[in-house]
């Protein structure tokens, strides 16, 4: 480095650059901080409230996310007193049946961590095995790194993460992706949060064959299946969002439908509810067209019992 000053475009070396905010000096030990105000300023309540109102059930998940939010908030206040507490490890694993809201929660989580200043951008990059693992020797590392680079500053969500490891084929390239992932999870904890998601039993066997992965993940969150009441509430929320409502005679039918669907194979919780409503919409539209009578607003927005009763679920 030379001592040339590039045409005086830079302030003198001893003068601090004006545009950079100086870190405020640490608070004196006897000061006190208003936590309520700190909380309001971070706007985390918006996200937490949205989580509460827009997602039905999932009590253990919400509790854990509230705890994480509280921890990060307190860490911020501690930092103002000059207490260095190190960065908490927030890599997570979400386990649960299909359709229990793992992806939805991950999106909210990214937003929450961004507001609390834990990650810089707050975007979510959702990938599966295909995006990480290559097809030939030497293809995996650049592919995985590319995904990791895209996810930096945000949350990397790996859906069905257990496919990365194939026990039956030891030359599978998935192992290479896992190793790169582990390295980045350890060394660049400041830059991204990794969330692994999948079904409970298969994730458990994935973790038991990759103990390094398990120990680097601090939060194992289990998503419980929805109760019938919760499924109904989810259905109502979805219909409300799409401008539909149930007629009085349709309500018990919808409840009955969910009860029956729940015990059938390939039930995917909220996703099945969504599909049921989609199909009811189709039948509703078809019914209106078939009658050919003029329709009013009520007819356009009301789903009748027939729209559900003609479902395959009710035919034994």
């Amino acid at each position, binding site marked *: *480095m*030379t001592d*040339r000053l*590039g*045409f005086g*475009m*830079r302030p003198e070396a001893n003068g601090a650059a004006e545009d950079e905010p100086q870190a405020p000096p640490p608070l004196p030990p006897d000061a006190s901080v208003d936590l309520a105000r700190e909380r309001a300023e971070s706007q985390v309540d918006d996200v937490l409230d949205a989580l509460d109102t827009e997602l039905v059930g999932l009590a253990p998940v919400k509790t854990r996310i509230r705890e994480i939010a509280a921890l990060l908030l307190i860490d911020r206040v501690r930092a103002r007193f000059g207490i260095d507490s190190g960065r908490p490890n927030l890599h997570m694993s979400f386990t649960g049946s299909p359709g229990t809201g793992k992806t939805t929660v991950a999106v909210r989580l990214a937003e929450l961590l961004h507001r609390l200043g834990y990650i*810089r*951008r707050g*975007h979510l990059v959702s990938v599966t095995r295909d995006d990480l693992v290559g097809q030939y020797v030497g293809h995996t590392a*650049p592919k995985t*790194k*590319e995904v*990791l*680079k*895209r996810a*930096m*500053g*945000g949350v990397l969500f790996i859906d069905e993460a257990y496919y990365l490891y194939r026990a039956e084929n030891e030359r599978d390239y998935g192992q290479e992706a896992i190793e790169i992932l582990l390295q980045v999870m350890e060394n*660049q904890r*400041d*830059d*991204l949060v990794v969330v692994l998601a999948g079904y409970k039993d298969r994730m458990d066997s994935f973790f038991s064959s990759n103990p390094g992965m398990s120990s680097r993940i601090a939060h194992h969150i289990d998503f419980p299946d929805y109760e019938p009441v919760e499924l109904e509430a989810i259905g109502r929320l979805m219909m409300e969002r799409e401008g539909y409502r149930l007629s009085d005679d349709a309500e018990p039918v919808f409840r009955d439908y969910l009860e029956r669907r729940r015990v059938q194979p390939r039930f995917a919780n909220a996703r099945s509810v969504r599909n049921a409503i989609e199909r009811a919409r189709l039948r509703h539209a078809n019914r209106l067209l078939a009658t050919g009578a003029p329709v009013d607003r009520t007819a356009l927005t009301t789903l009748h019992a027939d729209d559900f009763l003609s479902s395959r679920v009710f035919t034994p």
Partner: protein
Amino acid sequence: MRITQGTFSYLPDLTDEDITKQVAYVLDRGWPCSIEFTDDPHPRNSYWEMWGLPMFDLKDPAGVLLEINECRKTYPGHYIRLNAYDARYGRQTTALSFIVQRPAEEPGFRLDRTEVADRRVQYRTHPYALDRPQGERYAR
């Protein structure tokens, strides 16, 4: 002699924080970054070797810094520059390009004179670094 190519080259070398801020600016504009390296300092050497492919869809400078550091590790004695490409219609060109690493010792250039017909003189700049084979031009 310190070579001056690209933006910021008359300033003292950028620190990693400076680079991070520049990259953040670049990514906010939506320009993809790419990294190139060379050990031929001649000013007319405009095609440098690519370090990997251009990086699309990045949101955060950390990913670019990761690649810069990988490249620095592999080529500790080379020039490395970062290019940002603006793909918008009407521009479609490199929007920002600056050096992020240079060799510790830069021996500079000499001027060769060649006398040709009619007592005319032709000049040629010759980088001293080019006297040595590629890959061994700068101390590591």
